[in-house]
């Protein structure tokens, strides 16, 4: 403080000298009144600005010294922490609803297990996936997040899923710079979309490989460590261990049966575009994994939509002629094993992703092109078990002597499958975007005798009123086993309350 006082004093003395000097100067050369007035006003302005500077300095120094007096460590008012509800967690709700029209009555990807999360939405008016998120810094070292997802399917009670419940270290936790640890249940690092909540997606539905391989997203229980490397380019490496309870895994016995590893690299090209690429591995074991049953849902797979599928199978068999069905079953119905059977074995998924953003004007809010793609390769070996009804009669002529019992039919499979998608989204006006996406799956086994590989083509246009509201129209053509399904979807996505910042 003494220094400042001295500095102020010196400046004041300096200024006085200046005044005196100019007065002396003006005396030696008698000036006109105008000149004098001008000089005085100039001096006045000079004073005023210098005083303003000094006042500002004093004010800031006072604030600095106050903070250092009360605390040894400089305390600064944080402006980026949660606000408004000082000690309550930030609360955010996502509202989502849609109306959809499909040309095909049934939808399932032949040759792949389709879980509840990645089914086609109900036809007609429906509530999609609503979400409630509570999040907050726990203390100086930890952050916590709790997210519930509410799924509504026709004719079923509202399904509540604990999507995320995790803690994460804050940079103040004392870990080396760049290192983070996350534990609990979370949307883990795998590919691009997996970490996102579905309402953040650029399309209404997830691309085929996400639906077929991950049932929408991998959010198992476990922990993950990641390290951002020091360097001019962004580089991050990490990995995790997981329980092994969520698709593509199931029925974990030891509770630590899956692991992952990943590496990412990213940077800028000029000042208007940015890119990121990544490579990922997810490995584990599955026990009795079947579509929709992986994540401890309210109902088991034998009921609800499972039954409908069963009926359809029988229907198809009849069409093909009942007598031959038994003979052909060995190979012709392999696709059925793959989609409706339950899988036990090893599952490993490799993925690579890329994303490129370009804002032609430098402002992503005005105009922006986003190119994005992911490629997955799944390597599985194990047994698919399909339960079939079997009728046994003691007297072939008397139907009343027949007993129906279920029989397990096992098919051993060791094979790989690939899936990928590529998409482009362009913001052509500040509130309008258009996008197109192509996604493709290749059959897990050549013997499955699918006529064609499943693929889907999507186009969308959306209108974003503010960061918190968006209305989207999407058209899909899904072609599964040669049958085309035309899908029209109109969707709104709105959020109330806290709205997490978007990552790249």
């Amino acid at each position, binding site marked *: 403080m003494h220094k400042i006082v001295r500095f102020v004093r010196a400046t004041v003395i300096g200024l006085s000298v200046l005044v005196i000097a100019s007065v002396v100067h003006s005396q030696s050369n008698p000036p006109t009144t105008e000149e004098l007035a001008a000089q005085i006003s100039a001096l006045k*302005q000079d004073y005023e600005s210098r005083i303003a*500077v000094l006042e500002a300095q004093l004010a800031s120094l006072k604030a600095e010294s106050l903070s250092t007096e009360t605390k040894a460590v400089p305390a*600064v008012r944080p*402006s*980026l922490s949660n606000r408004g509800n000082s000690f309550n967690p930030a609360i955010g709700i996502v509202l989502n609803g849609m109306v959809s029209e499909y040309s095909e009555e049934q939808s399932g990807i032949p040759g792949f297990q389709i879980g509840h999360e990645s089914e086609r939405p109900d036809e007609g008016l429906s509530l999609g996936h609503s979400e409630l998120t509570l999040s907050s810094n726990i203390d100086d070292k930890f952050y916590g997040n709790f997210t519930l997802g509410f799924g509504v399917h026709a004719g079923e009670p509202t399904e509540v899923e604990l999507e995320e419940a995790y803690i994460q270290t804050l*940079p103040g936790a004392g870990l080396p710079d760049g290192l983070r640890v996350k534990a609990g249940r979370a949307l883990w690092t795998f590919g691009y979309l997996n970490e996102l909540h579905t309402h953040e997606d650029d399309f209404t539905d997830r691309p085929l490989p996400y639906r077929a391989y991950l049932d929408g997203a991998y959010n198992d229980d476990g922990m993950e460590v990641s390290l951002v*490397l020091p360097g001019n380019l962004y580089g991050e490496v990490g990995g995790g261990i997981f329980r092994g309870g969520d698709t593509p895994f199931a029925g974990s016995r030891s509770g630590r049966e899956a692991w992952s590893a990943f590496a990412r690299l990213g940077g800028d090209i000029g000042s208007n575009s940015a890119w990121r690429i990544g490579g990922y591995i997810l490995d584990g074991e599955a026990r009795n994994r079947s579509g929709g049953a992986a994540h401890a849902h309210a109902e088991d797979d034998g009921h609800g939509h499972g039954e409908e599928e069963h009926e359809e199978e029988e229907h198809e068999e009849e069409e093909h002629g009942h007598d031959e069905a038994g003979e052909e079953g060995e190979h012709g119905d392999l696709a059925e094993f793959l989609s409706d059977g339950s899988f036990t074995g090893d599952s490993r998924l490799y993925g690579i992703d890329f994303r490129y953003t370009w804002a032609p004007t430098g402002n992503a809010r005005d105009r922006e092109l986003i190119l994005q793609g992911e490629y997955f390769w799944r390597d599985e070996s194990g047994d698919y078990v399909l339960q079939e009804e079997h009728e046994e009669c003691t007297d072939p002529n008397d139907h009343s002597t027949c007993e129906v019992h279920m029989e397990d039919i096992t098919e051993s499979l060791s094979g790989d499958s690939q899936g990928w998608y590529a998409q482009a989204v362009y913001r052509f006006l500040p509130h309008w975007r258009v996008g197109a996406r192509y996604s493709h799956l290749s059959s897990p086994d050549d013997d499955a005798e699918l006529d064609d590989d499943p693929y889907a083509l999507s186009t969308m246009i959306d209108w974003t009123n503010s960061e918190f509201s968006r209305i989207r129209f999407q058209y899909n053509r899904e072609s599964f086993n040669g049958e085309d399904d035309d899908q029209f979807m109109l969707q709104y996505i709105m959020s109330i309350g806290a709205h997490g910042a978007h990552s790249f």
Partner: protein
Amino acid sequence: MKTWHAALLVMTLGAILPLSAVAQEPIRVLACEPEWAALAEEIGGNDVIVHSATQGRQDAHHIRARPSLIAKVRLADVLFCSGAELEVGWLPVLMQRGARRIVQPGQPGHIMAADHVEMLDRPEVIDRSLGDIHPDGNPHVHLDPRNIVILADVLASRLERIDPSRSGAYRERLASFQSRWADAMTGWQKRMERLRGMEVIVHHKAWSYLLHWSGLERVASLERVSGIPPTASHLAQVFELARNSGTKAIIRAPFEPVDASDWLFGKTAIPVVELPFTVGAHPEVRDLFSLFDVTLTLLEEIKDRP
């Protein structure tokens, strides 16, 4: 096994590299906006490496949390931003992902300009229907040159704390900057006398601090609700106001949409002037001094039009 070795090597390197990067390395400053980058260059000189997250013609509200910025935060010693939620859409992600301790809130490397100056436009009602509002007040504090002096001082003392070995150099540059800034302010204040009371229409509240300092009169804002494009009915009201006042100019920032201001110009012939807003947004604006020089020159040109 080979992959494991590679992973281990990468992990070890990651742990060792930051340790070797201390000592006499230059201090790395990551500024969120070009004005703070310019100030850091004034005070830090050759002792700092300054990077700005946004460019002159970019709107700092809306940039992406680009991977390159995570890398920049990871290595930054000082994070120098406007604060007051201007960067709320991307900075928290960068700070969390970059996980650099010294730039976290409460640490000496964390400087938010809004924490150190008097704020304007503090809203009385906080509701999302009012658009992108900033509960702490208007974050564009750099357009009042008196705030620049305060921040220069804050920055110098933080640099001294982080890098005591070069404390003398920071003090020297601060003193030199302060004296040059005071001289410049004297000149600007003289020029502003002529502009005082000139009526203008602004696009967005971004200009509050400039108006407050310079004494320009705001007749209306084209955006009734900030962050949400002007509505037709509101524009009609602005048109009435413009016609019935002596409005001399419509002020627009380089990153603001042109349609509304161009429309009003078409209807009223009131000239639109694009002021630089920050360093790098105009070919002649290369530092903080020329930012205010050019701003005043452009306003004077409008004033002198018949």
